[in-house]
């Protein structure tokens, strides 16, 4: 009973964490104070804006404010806070145009400061672009890639698994040997190979769909084996045999008697696959094979850490990795909770 309770609590915690993260990423344009592609060429590698409550004269402000960053004299990547004016943080302010979830145009941002200051919650990158906004927009690409590729994988896997499990014999043999082949393939290298065969000049949208198709298609084998196992087990159950005896078609059997048994396993599988596929997208983008500049993805944001000087100088460039870890943790804890639940049910 108590383990059930902790399992449920874990699942709720994970679900709430994930839901809020996805909500923020979905509404990236609203939450992000700046446009992710706008370069501020005077402000490369600005450190995160510091929130202040007490100004230079010692006055306490109830509304938090920031100071502008001004380049340190004689230096290119060092900054001082220019304390001549405070820029209070305002909520629900009008700013650059964006589209909610890539669709509805809007101008209202969750927070912002008055021009010419800019709120850089996580500093800027080498072109002076707001890192916080780029992480949110990059999340849209990385997380959507993970989820969509998972759907493709599960769809393909379920299809192959059902056919294989239900019809058996040589179909099963061929499908499963094929699946084993896919399982032993070093998939990351396969992704590189596939990507390098494709044309270079593609729009970001094309690249994105190509990425998820490639990632999703390569990963069908594991869910296929899983579903096949469940179908094989269910096929010889008495209620299935009875249904067949009453003249039920294969499709009917599948939909009403066999597949429902696999939902739990598929959900667990999905929660495992999403972070794995987010990581696949991140890896490809890290090596420059993902969506191109200036569109961010977590992988392309992390790619700059390949440069030694960035690695040792600007800690805020690691922030996308933290986002990646948190999202992966959320999915894995849900997968874990699902798994525990499934086990307790089957026992």
């Amino acid at each position: 009973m108590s383990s059930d309770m902790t399992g449920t609590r874990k699942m709720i915690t994970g679900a709430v964490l994930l839901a809020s993260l996805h909500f923020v990423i979905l509404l990236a344009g609203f939450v992000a104070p700046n446009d992710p592609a706008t370069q501020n060429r005077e402000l490369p590698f600005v450190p995160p804006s510091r929130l202040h409550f007490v100004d230079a004269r010692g006055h306490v402000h109830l509304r938090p404010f920031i100071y502008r960053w001004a380049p340190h004299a004689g230096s290119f990547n060092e900054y001082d806070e220019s304390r001549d004016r405070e820029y209070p943080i305002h909520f629900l302010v009008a700013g650059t145009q964006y589209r909610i979830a890539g669709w509805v145009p809007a101008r209202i941002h969750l927070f912002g400061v008055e021009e010419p200051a800019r709120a850089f919650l996580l500093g800027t990158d080498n072109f002076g672009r707001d890192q916080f906004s780029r992480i949110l927009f990059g999340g849209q690409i990385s997380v959507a890639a993970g989820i969509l590729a998972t759907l493709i994988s599960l769809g393909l896997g379920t299809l192959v698994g059902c056919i294989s499990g239900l019809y058996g014999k040589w179909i099963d043999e061929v499908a499963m040997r094929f699946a084993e082949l896919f399982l032993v393939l070093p998939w990351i290298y396969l992704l590189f190979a596939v990507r390098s065969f494709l044309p270079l000049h593609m729009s970001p949208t094309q690249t994105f769909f190509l990425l998820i198709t490639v990632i999703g298609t390569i990963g069908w084998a594991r869910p296929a084996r899983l579903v096949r196992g469940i179908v094989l087990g269910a096929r010889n159950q008495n209620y299935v045999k009875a249904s067949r005896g009453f003249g039920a078609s294969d499709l009917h059997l599948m939909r009403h008697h066999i597949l429902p048994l696999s939902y739990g396993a598929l959900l667990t599988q999905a929660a495992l696959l999403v972070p794995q596929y987010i990581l696949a997208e991140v890896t490809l983008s890290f090596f420059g094979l993902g969506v191109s500049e200036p569109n961010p993805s977590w992988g392309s944001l992390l790619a700059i850490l390949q440069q030694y000087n960035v690695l040792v100088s600007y800690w805020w460039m690691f922030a996308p990795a933290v986002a990646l870890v948190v999202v992966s943790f959320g999915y894995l804890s849900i997968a874990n909770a699902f798994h525990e639940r499934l086990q307790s049910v089957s026992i």
Partner: protein
Amino acid sequence: MFRLGCVATLLLASGLPCFASSPPQTPLPGEELLSTDNPIGRYGGTLVVAQRSEPKTLNPVTAADAPSREVIGRLTADLIHINRASQQTEPALAKSWTVSKNGRVFTVKLRHGVRFSDGQPFDADDVLFSFKVYLDEKVHSPQRDLLVVGGKPIEVEKVDPYTLRFTLAQPYAAAERIFDGLAMMPRHLLERAYKEDKFATTWNLTAAPAEMAGLGPFRVREYAPGQKIVLERNPYYWKADRNKNRLPYLDELVFLFVGNEDAQAIRFQAGDSDIISRFSAENYVVLSREAAARGIELFDLGPSLEYNFLVFNLNDLSSKNLSKIAAKQTWFQNVRFRSAVSSAIDREGIVKLVYSGRASPLWGNVSPSNKFWVNSALPHPARSLDKARELLKSAGFSWRSDGRLVDRQSQPVEFSIIASSSNAQRSKMATIVQDDLNQLGMDVHVVPLEFRAVVDRVFQTYDYEASIMGLGGGDADPNPEMNVWLSNGGTHLWHLGESKPATEWEAQIDLLMRKQMVQLNYKQRKRLYDQVQELVAANVPYVFLATPNILVGAKKKVGNFKPAILDPNTLWNVEQLYFLPSNGSPPRATQ
């Protein structure tokens, strides 16, 4: 081991220096050593340099890549040498030379008593042999083109064992500069391989050190694949300091292969290497933070001779199946389009964001540091989007309601820029150019590709729309640039393989470049080359971006370190480098 230790102790006890490699030979009577004027150093020590990649060969005739040439340059010597500090020619293996009045005949006197690193004597027969190999078409030497003047190869005759006569088909400006970097090779070791048609494969990395000999300050001792190549002192080297101490001072020179520029910086920071050449401005910032504590000194030598530029594909694509690119060429071929692009680019932004300010913006092919040849009258227009829009409008372009630029046929202007992904600077430049051109309503994609893929597309398949590339850096003289500007030149990137000049201005450039090549008077040559620079700036075949500063560093204990903007920036005087004594006492040479 024990016996060696004893010998070392004995030598030390007797006040003699202990050499890790063969000690320098005492001069023979009649040996004409070249006396250098550097401050006197001291013998001993191993200098370590980290290289980005491994040399591909040690064969001076076939080597084409920078790492190979860097190592080979320390193993070999030339007849006449360009002093990297003064940028002027000076005697090397040739002790003197005279030029006939018509500028076509060079008579060169060789230094007496010079020996190869295996102790064998060097004379005119070795020079004859070396030129024969360089000029042999079957050997495919990258230097051969330089030795063909007026369509005919240079003729070489032996007058006596120490005198040679070189005859050119036509006068050639700065002809003595072509001798720089042409390694003189030992006939006694290589003639057999040459006669058996095996020359191209001799002196590769697996060759035994005993089979190789050169006239450079060092000779090969050991090669560890993937790790390092160890060079030791050439005990017969033909230079000495003014106290008659035979150079080089160093016992050994080691090249480590570390993979990339960041690794070079890390190894230098960690103290594993003594000298670092040509590293990025970002790493300069990182290294300078701890420079004093780590006993290193960094130098910013100012703008290099390299020029980075954006080039549009203007090649003749009729024989290729590239109709999409061919359609876009109607934009690229319009000089107003190219000028508009040039006007929209934020060169100051590139200098700041790509090079942390350690670079110079460029509006022409000659770097501001090339004082002898730069046309300082060229205009340096500031960035202006308004001017760019005007130019585009006058060329028939217009803007849609959503701000996108379209041509006369209402086709949106959209193209991609390829850049080498291994060159972080060029990728960054591409991103800045993309953002700048976006502001004109152009839809530009950046495609980072592996360096070889970029080269392949630009030189072979022509399957690209625009590219960011870099050229130059070899010599300050205009002649090595011939192949870039002549319409049939091998590096005439925007339009390769022209059988005749495609445009009027390219024909003019051809004429001017050919004229300057045979003009012996510097002022008149400069006037001709100034005109070339004006034509290039007016017709924008390349949109010039920036030239990086040359940044180098060395441990403070390296003496006589005199970096230069010409290649090789730091090791050009390696025979004079030495390690200062750690106790700070004044250096002295002992032998």
